[in-house]
């Protein structure tokens, strides 16, 4: 009989090896069809009319000229804002669907909205503009601890709103009629995409079909069907035709994303030996028109004995915040690690020594110590390290920076059906999605591993809501969830097959195993049948078994786990005459339990580092504080890192004994948390003072140098 526990290292056929992603060939030949690429007969193109004001009463919406245009087939207006307020630039007020994209654009330009503009709140860098009472937290006796501290560092830190900038814009193609609906969305949540849509569309929710085989990036911003999903559906229903509605790039940047900002002062107290005794963080920021939760400070060093913190929300008239890889963590990490490194500098201590000295204040001291040593070796810390600012006389200063981070990553609830057919074919159906992280590949690896078959002998069907329900892909929950449900379903199906084979062979099913394309008496291939011979014994039947990942149970079984730590270091050069920061090298050391596909896992960490370089050096939504318009809602001025910006990147995955037996843990969030902190710390180490805000643009660097530091 097969057991659902993961096989030991020496028994693994596929798991842990570096496999090519299965959809690589269709992606690398341009044949992959994304929602944006779906063209169905009779399809119309929709364009939306966004509010031009950050705060205004909407007196009237006149779509008559658009409706009268040839080629316009349906018009929608938001009755909900008529006579009421629009609350951010980009809020969708009306939409049209027309025969061509050009006609739709022309028609939307004919929509006339009469507004009464009001004074809006845009600025998010002044805590006195906050709404409501700040959240407050106190542990220990911070006042006494600061009093007793040998050294107290106080600094200001800030990280602005950035946006997701998915390459495939948000949106969908849909075909909606009375009887039902088909949606092809770009989504992180296939199984539950349609939840809550039925009433708006007047279609039974059970009749809404959703398909998403590949999608062009989400990063936390594509969990729901969103307003444009409903608008597209209503336009389709009205016109009796399929409708494509994808956000244009400017709207994508303004309303399709938004990671909350975080600013504030942090005070750290330590004794003269470098032991941190107290922290006080007064934070504020905006989630735009949406909610706001201040980032976790202290981050990772959560056991600092005396703590005070407060968080103030500033509700601004901007697009609402959405989850962005590791919500709150990159901000909390930057603020905490920068304040820690500043404290080390004030003490005149080496940053690595200081971090190591305080690891007892974290939940995983041994792991971080191990990871810090590995990262230090990888980047050549001993050879390159110097105390803050001790970086020579020339205009180009070089420095090293350190950061550590944590994440949960427990698998989400997930169901998977596995079928074994009499012709020997094996397939699974699971309502998950592949955001580009290798989910399809990993599910296939688990299925093939369990059956003892090569990869091409099994097939994973994903990306459709007709399949068993699997969770949304967010919070690094996918890999643990789908690996567990697939493993459970595949084991159950295999055991059914072993029962059939055992009866025919006159063996005890308990003694049989699937290995290398055969069903055999465990460890004895002289008593065996081939996989196909075994399946032929099913006659006209198929085996169909469902695996249900109940996270608590699967954790007990060792299939999955939660809680990881990682360490990153950055080596940068800063030209103090131009303010330009150059990444020389970054290293990432990361644990994530049992790794299914080493290749896609490593890619994921590289991706986290690069996305981190981007928000550390370039990314920032720049708003006009008077009109509330985003001034860089395009890709020239909302800059992303390119190939020349990333330096040399090195990744080390913590695997083997001590890690593998924990089971599978997610990896999407962890590697993107630390780069901002590590790079900022490296810049401080190089130029001898803290540049208090990200991104580390030349103007910020030069201003900081001109001011000569903040403390």
């Amino acid at each position, binding site marked *: 009989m097969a057991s659902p526990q993961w096989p030991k290292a020496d028994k693994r056929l596929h798991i842990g090896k570096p496999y090519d992603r299965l959809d690589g*060939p269709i992606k690398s030949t341009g044949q992959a069809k*994304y929602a944006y690429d779906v063209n169905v007969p009779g399809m119309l193109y929709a364009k939306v009319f966004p509010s031009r004001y950050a705060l205004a009463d909407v007196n009237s919406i006149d779509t008559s000229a658009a409706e009268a245009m040839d080629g316009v087939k349906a018009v929608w207006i938001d009755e909900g804002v008529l006579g009421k307020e629009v609350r951010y630039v980009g809020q969708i007020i009306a939409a049209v669907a027309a025969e061509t994209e050009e006609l739709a654009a022309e028609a939307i*330009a004919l929509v006339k909205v009469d507004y009464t503009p009001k004074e809006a709140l845009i600025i998010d860098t002044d805590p006195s503009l906050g709404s409501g009472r700040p959240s407050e937290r106190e542990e220990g006796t911070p006042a006494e601890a600061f009093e007793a501290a040998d050294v107290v560092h106080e600094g200001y830190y800030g990280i602005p709103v950035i946006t997701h900038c998915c390459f495939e814009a948000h949106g969908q193609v849909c075909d909606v009629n009375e009887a039902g609906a088909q949606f092809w969305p770009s989504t992180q949540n296939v199984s539950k995409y349609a939840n809550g849509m039925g009433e708006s569309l007047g279609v039974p929710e059970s009749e809404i079909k959703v398909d998403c085989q590949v999608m062009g990036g989400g990063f936390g911003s594509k969990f729901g069907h969103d307003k444009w999903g409903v608008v597209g559906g209503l336009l389709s229903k009205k016109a009796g035709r399929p409708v494509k509605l994808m956000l244009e790039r400017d709207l994508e940047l303004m309303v399709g994303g938004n990671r909350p900002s975080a600013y504030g002062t942090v005070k750290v107290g330590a004794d003269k030996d470098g032991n941190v005794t107290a922290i006080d963080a007064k934070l504020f920021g905006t989630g735009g028109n949406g909610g706001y939760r201040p980032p976790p400070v202290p981050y990772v060093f959560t056991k600092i004995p005396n703590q005070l913190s407060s968080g103030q929300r500033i509700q601004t008239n901007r697009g609402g915040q959405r989850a962005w890889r590791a919500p709150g963590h990159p901000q909390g990490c930057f603020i905490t690690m920068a304040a820690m490194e500043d404290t080390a500098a004030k003490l005149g201590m080496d940053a690595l020594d200081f971090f190591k000295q305080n690891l007892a204040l974290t939940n995983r001291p041994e792991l971080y110590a191990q990871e810090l040593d590995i990262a230090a070796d990888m980047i050549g810390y001993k050879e390159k390290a110097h105390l803050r600012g001790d970086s020579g006389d020339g205009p180009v200063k070089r420095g090293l920076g350190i950061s550590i981070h944590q994440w949960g990553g427990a698998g989400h609830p997930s169901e998977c059906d596995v079928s074994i057919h009499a012709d020997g074919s094996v397939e699974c159906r699971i309502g998950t999605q592949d955001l*580009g*992280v290798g989910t399809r590949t990993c599910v296939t690896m688990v299925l093939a591993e369990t059956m003892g078959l090569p990869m091409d002998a099994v097939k994973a069907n994903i990306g459709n809501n007709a399949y068993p329900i699997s969770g949304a892909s967010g919070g690094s929950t996918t890999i643990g969830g789908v690996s567990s449900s697939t493993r459970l379903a595949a084991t159950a199906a295999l055991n059914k097959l072993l029962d059939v084979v055992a009866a025919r062979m006159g063996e005890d099913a308990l003694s049989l195993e699937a290995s290398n394309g055969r069903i055999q008496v465990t460890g004895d291939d002289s008593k065996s049948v081939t996989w196909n011979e075994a399946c032929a014994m099913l006659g006209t039947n198929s085996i169909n078994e469902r695996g249900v990942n109940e996270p608590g149970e699967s954790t007990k079984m060792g299939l999955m786990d939660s809680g990881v730590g990682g360490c990153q270091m950055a080596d940068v050069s800063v030209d103090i005459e131009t303010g330009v920061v150059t990444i020389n090298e970054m290293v990432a050391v990361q644990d994530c339990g049992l790794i299914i596909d080493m290749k896609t896992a490593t890619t994921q960490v590289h991706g986290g580092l690069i996305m981190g370089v981007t928000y550390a050096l370039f990314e920032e939504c720049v708003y006009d504080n008077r009109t509330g318009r985003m001034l860089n809602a395009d890709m020239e001025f909302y800059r992303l890192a390119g190939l020349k910006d990333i330096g040399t990147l090195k990744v080390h995955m913590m695997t083997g004994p001590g890690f593998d037996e924990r089971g599978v843990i997610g990896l999407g969030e962890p590697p993107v948390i630390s780069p901002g902190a590590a790079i900022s710390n490296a810049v401080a180490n190089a130029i001898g003072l803290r540049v208090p805000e990200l991104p580390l643009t030349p103007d910020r660097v030069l201003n900081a140098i001109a001011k000569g530091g903040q403390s």
Partner: protein
Amino acid sequence: MSKETRGSDPQGVSRRGFLKGVGAGSAAAGFIGVGENTAQAEGQDAPAIVGPGDGTYTLNIDGESKEVTAEPRATLLDVMRNRLDVTSAKKVCDRGTCGACTIFIDGEPAYACSMLALEAIGHKITTIASLGTPEMMSALQKAFVKHDAQQCGFCTPGFIVAATDLLNKNPNPTREQVRDGLGGNLCRCGTYVGVQEAVLEAAQSMKGGA
């Protein structure tokens, strides 16, 4: 601010918004210039598509002549994607910044979002479809798969077209030349490490095969 032509306020019309908005007029006149030259070279009549409204013309895409009916203001990218179901070139920035719509025009790389379809009449348009199929990938495409040079994959076709051009012009690039050569293509997932390795390896394997 690129789409400030929305609504009744004409403020802030961008260069590209202007190009699209008045394609029926001056931009189309520009096209006729190109069309005339090409037509003269080939001894054909220049198509007189000046708008407003649709015109019918022929584009040569991946060696096939495809007749298309579209307004003169439509970009090549929109015409390929919306009228001809040629969707490998992606619409991302829609203004020549990200490289996701990179194709070849007469063997030279171009951004399909930043030219009118009319400008491509009489020219050879080549997309990634001409470079390989999942069953018969080019050396570069194989290397992209092997080095996992894609995550979501939305930027990948543009990268492969651009990298193909890079290797055509410099079969033996250094790492630095790869970084320079592909600096016009952006990726949000952060697959640059794989891209770099893939291009360097493809250069080696193509040399070995020659």
